[in-house]
């Protein structure tokens, strides 16, 4: 399984928790977080789960299924 995160830009409040969990995947320099890289699946899921605003949508690139939230 290869997980791909995307940011729900309406929900993102730029808390920055995703950057703390996975700095190689997420960057906060603007109004909302950006996806800047890839990382292990468990790291991407952990970052998504850490988001207080639940603004990270995680998709399985193999199947196209949304796995989080």
């Amino acid at each position: 399984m290869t997980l791909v995160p995307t940011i729900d830009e309406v929900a993102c409040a730029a808390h920055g928790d995703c950057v703390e969990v996975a700095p190689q995947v997420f960057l906060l320099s603007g109004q909302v977080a950006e996806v800047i890289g890839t990382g292990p699946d468990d790291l991407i899921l952990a970052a998504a789960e850490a988001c207080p605003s639940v603004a990270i949508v995680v998709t399985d690139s193999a199947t196209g299924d949304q796995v989080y939230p």
Partner: protein
Amino acid sequence: MSAGVVIAGGGLSAQRCAETLRQGGFAGPITIVSSEAHAPYDRPPLSKALLAGTKNAGDVALRPADWHADQEIELLLGDAAGGLDVERRKLILESGAEIGYEHLVIATGSRARELPGGSRYENVHTLRTLDDALRLRDVLEPGKRLVVLGAGLIGQEVAATAKGRGADVTLIEAEALPLARALHPELAQWLVDLQREEGVEVKLGVRVAELIGEGDRLQALILDDGSRVELDEMLVAIGVTANSEWLPQPIEVLTERPEIYSAGDVAGGDHWELAAHQGKAAAHEILGQEPAPVPFTGWWSDVHGVRMQGLGQPAAGDQIVFEGSRDERDFHALVSRDGVPVAALAVGQPREIPRLRKLIAEHSSTEQTKEAE
């Protein structure tokens, strides 16, 4: 000194305002004035990871140490806004220094309310600033008897964190149930039960009647039910007061001026997401841009390893529907008024939040439209 944008206050909304201005191409001077000695930092970890010891002072900064210098944003730390001359467009600091502005953002936040007669004791604490949190962390040792007065979010989190560090914790609340503005009574009761299961003693519906101290140490509280609580340390977490006394006029009057804006606690933005939004919105106005619509903001809290995420404002008498297991700390609840969803809480179920947010936001925007008509 130079004009440009002066932001009175150095918290989250000040930081959001300054960074939004730079991103929006504002090239003039930006000055952040803060009474605190630290560059803008994030407050939510203060009662959680910082107090637990898993984060340190450097970990809570909102931006890396050299960011403000790189962005040419001047930080004037350790000197609070003390007065304002609106005719001359000068912010007057407590040190007596004056700073001219073209645009002024009032974002001086709030301070913790104190218990009358409590501040004379060295072991009576409040928790609002990074320095407050570091002081409290220093005295929280295993076995210490900590009384937390006030069972709002700060009180709940400190009680949980302190218990996790081995302190003996008593949480005291004047109301019959805590957090009435954020939690439906059944959810408030669930949270009280959770604290008790984790070993926190919770006393509800009682007030402090008398402080028993010796020298500069508070030793015990007498409550208005006659009971006595011995203590080593006490945290007073009974709410906040806006830092607005320095303003020459009410803030609503001042912000009628086109060059004066407000954000954060002084502007009613009393939780993280709203304060962040207001800081950005002030920047958009200065830039002459249409401010983004006020988002449907929520709150969150971590107690005893359980994440709670809340939306909306419940009221007594609302209906509530639970899904999942309260005992397992794995559920969500939807609160409705006259059949309309108004609030929700997810506990250990962040996945439910997007759906619940949508459900409540849809109805609340309908309501707002109705009111506007």
